[in-house]
């Protein structure tokens, strides 16, 4: 039926014609854009099969534990291709994000053999890895019998590859000596400014350029636009309050969470620079943040931007991306801008969050599960997800270079690509890896809450935090 289209697709795979040309010609054949893309995708999957025994695990069923997320939706949309390619079945258990990690911890800590692979964040691997729940994937990646020749691991952005690899020694650098690849990056977010262009235009304002500028502009929005507050940032009592905008700006001033002194981790939030930055951040929230900041998570920050309740946010770039569509009042009005808090800094230093894929140590069919993992994190699926679904931000350079993806983003997401280009080189994980990450970072957030509520002055609060963090590190022998 689509034989001609299939031939054309082969030509694309042989790189004889471009994708655009392919679409033009299939259009002449009377094939719609979606159907054409489908044919191409199918043929590319077949091409994938050429030099590798994908059918090795035919008939096996892989079990996944997944988070309800657009990445997962994109995977499901393309799953038939995987089934056809491998003859395997894939069963998935999807849990809401609110409870997802608790479910993962519960399943893994009971040694459940129920799940082979699962979604995880990079920070989580700092617990799961030392706990012995994860499989080191470097051996799989480097074994040509297990990994298809087109997998092209080096195509995955180097900072992300490093961020998901760790030796397990507290304080040792990510991706450093003896690092085990605990997970495979799947999709990621870096932190920058997303703003309401309608409001900014109305005030003839340009996006903020540094911390002081951000504070001023947020205050101006707060004062001049009725019913809209200046800037949305997270504030709930959770580690998730620290890792987006806050840590990105903190790192831009050259500050770190820990330093190594005589082989011991020491809390480093007590420096003069850190205190000065904390004071500014706290003042910004008090002056022009959301009134109920201390309950703000990803959802509230995004909802407010999408509904036109906030002028801008300093959070994950893809949060602003998601809010620019769907049933949001301000859809189409949002724009993006990279942000370096420190006027002396050369470039932005966004901390990153990486949704990754982990392979359970308790899985009884690791090789089969790896077959799915390499497909799901491969270039073909990455291109499919980035072009047609919300599988954004891609973790592969080749997907970023894809003209279709770029033109799709450039068309509907004003300034997104520029924001990414400016942010990407400096974006990585700025936390020091150590297994008490969640405990200590949550305490950091709680202490930030006390400062914003005026329960404790900033410098005093930070001194208390440093004492408490150091005490807890010592108590577990770090």
């Amino acid at each position, binding site marked *: 039926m689509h034989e001609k289209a299939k031939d054309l697709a082969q030509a694309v795979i042989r790189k004889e014609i471009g994708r655009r040309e392919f679409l033009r010609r299939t259009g002449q054949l009377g094939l719609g854009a979606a159907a054409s893309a489908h044919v191409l995708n199918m043929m590319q999957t077949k091409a994938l099969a050429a030099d590798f025994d994908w059918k090795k695990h035919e008939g096996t069923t892989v079990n996944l534990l997944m988070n309800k997320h657009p990445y997962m939706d994109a995977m499901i949309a393309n799953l038939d291709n995987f089934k056809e390619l491998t003859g395997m079945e894939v069963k998935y258990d999807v849990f809401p994000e609110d409870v997802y990690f608790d479910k993962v911890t*519960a399943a893994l800590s009971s040694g459940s053999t129920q799940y082979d692979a699962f979604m995880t964040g990079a920070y989580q691997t*700092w617990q799961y890895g030392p*706990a012995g729940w994860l499989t080191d994937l470097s051996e799989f990646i480097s074994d040509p019998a297990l990994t298809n020749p087109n997998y092209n691991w080096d195509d995955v952005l180097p900072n992300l590859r490093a961020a998901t690899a760790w030796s397990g020694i507290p304080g040792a650098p990510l991706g450093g000596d003896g690092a085990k690849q605990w997970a495979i990056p799947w999709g990621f977010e870096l932190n920058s400014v997303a703003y309401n262009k309608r409001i900014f235009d109305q005030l003839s304002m340009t996006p903020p350029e540094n911390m002081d500028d951000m504070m001023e502009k947020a205050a101006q929005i707060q004062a001049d636009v009725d019913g809209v507050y200046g800037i949305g940032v997270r504030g709930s009592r959770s580690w998730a309050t620290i890792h987006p905008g806050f840590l990105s700006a903190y790192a831009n001033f050259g500050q770190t969470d820990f330093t190594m002194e005589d082989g011991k981790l020491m809390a480093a939030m007590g420096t003069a620079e850190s205190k000065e930055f904390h004071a500014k951040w706290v003042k910004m929230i008090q002056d022009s943040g959301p009134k109920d900041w*201390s309950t703000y998570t990803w959802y509230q920050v995004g909802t407010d931007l999408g509904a036109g309740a906030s002028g801008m946010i300093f959070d994950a770039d893809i949060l602003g991306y998601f809010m620019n569509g769907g049933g949001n009042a301000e859809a189409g009005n949002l724009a993006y801008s990279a942000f370096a808090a420190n006027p002396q800094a050369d470039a932005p230093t966004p901390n990153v969050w990486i949704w990754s894929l982990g392979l359970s140590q308790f899985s009884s069919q690791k090789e089969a599960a790896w077959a799915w993992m390499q497909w799901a994190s491969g270039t073909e699926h990455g291109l499919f997800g980035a072009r047609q679904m919300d599988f954004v931000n891609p973790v592969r350079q080749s997907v970023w270079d894809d003209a279709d993806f770029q033109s799709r983003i450039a068309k509907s997401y004003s300034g997104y690509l520029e924001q990414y280009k400016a942010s990407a080189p400096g974006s990585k994980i700025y936390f020091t890896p150590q297994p008490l990450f969640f405990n200590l970072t949550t305490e950091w957030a709680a202490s930030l809450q006390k400062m914003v509520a005026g329960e404790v002055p900033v410098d005093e609060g930070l001194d208390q935090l440093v004492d408490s963090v150091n005490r807890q590190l010592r108590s*577990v022998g770090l």
Partner: protein
Amino acid sequence: MSAAAKRPFMRLALPYILSLPALLVCIGILIPFGTAVYYSMQRYNLAFPMGRGFIWFENYQAFLTDPAFWNTIRVSLLYTFLTVTFELLLGLGVALLLQRRTLMNNVLSIMLMLPLMIAPAIAALMWKLMTNPNFGILSYLVGLAGLEDFKWASDPGTALFTVVLVDVWVYTPFMMILLLAGLRALPRQPFEAAELDGVPSSFVFFRITLPMLTPYILTAVLFRMLESIQQFDIIYAMTQGGPGDTLMVFQVQAYLERYQYTNVGRSAALLMVLWAITFILSNIFVKQWLRLRERARGV
């Protein structure tokens, strides 16, 4: 002959036969309780498998000098006291208002149970929206009343008030329905006699209604108290124990320790303390309850 021989045995064994299946079903589930006690005496963080070891009561000892622990005790008890007190007073009041058996009262009593039928975790999500300063209807209404800067759960000064309010909204119907059932089950003679004698209604309430209702009140308070001191859903969904440590009650802290910080030993020890508190409280209540029942039946 054989029937006669069986009878005394049956009479002795019957109560055990009747109650044992229930007991066995519960005990089966509670075997892990012992394991949990064992965990509470271990240095046991899942992320430090090498450091695991038996340390007797060190986890408990660590609590004694930990201000966060004493804060948790204080907040948990305060929360329990406030919620149970308000729910009892309000529940009793509403039950008295609905005491008469009219169709309207019957329908209203069921309608008033609606808050109880929404899972607290989901109800809290809705309250969070309704108290949102931008889109929240309650914030809007409170703003109209002149309290424009009321920050609900996000301010340390009003956070406790807000979660207590949600708890009262969710669980008062529980008190109300138990007390209503109790009120309607009371014998009528004392009230009819009192009315004939022209006894003032406040005297009737405090000297007849309340004493006769006490076993019901104790049951309702007992159940509410045990639930309230273990409150998790509402507080976790509304503030995760914040702002700062304002609402860090037992189960929230234990949940964080267990599922986010993977510190199983500390979490188990914390929950053991909670269990001990509830055990003591309920012991006192049950003793009181039995005494009152004895007295009521003896009369």
